[in-house]
């Protein structure tokens, strides 16, 4: 019986699941609702200088990379397996597309963070 390679994807899925369960709701609320239109958050909270400074700090980079990358790996894992649940027999191509896009997002984020500099 063939050993499954699922553990790799499952661990990434799990890490992304924990992180998104902890911080995704509040991040969505802040960046997507009360940050842009309020209330309870001044417009200056998401100002360029502030966010850019955050992205230049090594800890800021780590957090931004973790959020984007792990959210993506969590989501693509669920979406890929969800296709199976819907009866769509997506094969290796879909698997490569799914996890490949999460990997691509990770690499792009890493590059952007390097471009932003220190």
């Amino acid at each position, binding site marked *: *019986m*063939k*050993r*499954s*390679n*699922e*553990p*790799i994807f*499952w*661990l990434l899925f799990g890490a992304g699941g924990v992180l998104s369960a902890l911080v995704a709701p509040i991040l969505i609320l802040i960046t997507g609702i009360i940050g842009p239109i309020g209330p309870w958050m001044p417009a200056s909270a998401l100002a360029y200088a502030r966010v850019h400074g955050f992205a230049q700090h090594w800890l800021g980079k780590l957090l931004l990379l973790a959020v984007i990358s792990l959210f993506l790996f969590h989501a693509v894992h669920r979406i890929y*397996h969800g296709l*199976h*649940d819907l*009866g769509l027999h997506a094969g290796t191509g879909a698997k490569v597309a799914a996890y490949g896009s999460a990997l691509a997002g990770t690499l792009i984020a890493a590059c952007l963070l390097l471009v932003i500099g220190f």
Partner: protein
Amino acid sequence: MAEPRTIKIEVLRYNPERDLEPHFQTFEVPFTPDTSVLQGLQYIKDHLDGSLTFRWSCRMAICGSCGKMVNGKPVLSCHTFLRDYYPKVRIEPLDHFPILRDLAIDQTDFVNNKLPSVKPYLMPKDEKPVSEGPFLQTPAQLQQYYQYSQCINCLLCYAACPQYGLNAKFTGPAALALLHRYNADSRDQGWEERAELLDAEEGVWGCTLVGYCSEVCPKQVDPAHAINQNKVNSAMDYFGLLKFLMPRGGA
């Protein structure tokens, strides 16, 4: 005495020698507050249609024979009561299994394939002669696997599991819970023998934690818990870590 109330029981019928497809048939069945769904089926067979075919045995939720879909949910029919479904109840065979006849399903995949595949027997490190007495086990060691040993093989969890329904190669809740029952038993050192199945797609990795199996289990075995805690074990085994934590000495 007043006329007993009657309930409409809509049963899925299928005669393999006559029918191309199953179809529903409705019967009016008298009932009282303590009439089980199983008793309703028995009334139909005894008084209305002797050809109605269904499995049952103990009538007390311990043999695991009488599993049926009642209004779309897998239950033990001896443990489910008509009073809760008045005025109409729909009874079908357990989901995700082929129908042999009426409400009787083909269980051979579970009995002949799934059960033996998990090696459901103690594999001690060293054979112990009878003269040396029994294996000793503390109450705490018993608690580590006791709930998983309560499975009555009723197959409600398989009817509940969409992953088994979508792919019958998946070992499924009850068998994997039984696998864990043996791995967690202090008298057993066979986890490596069972690892090949555990680590495969057919093992724990076929599960997406729908969780319905644990909801429907009449014995609170919690197969979802058995399977998913073993995802952690399987992941550790994947990276070769489990061998450090659990040398052949066992759990």
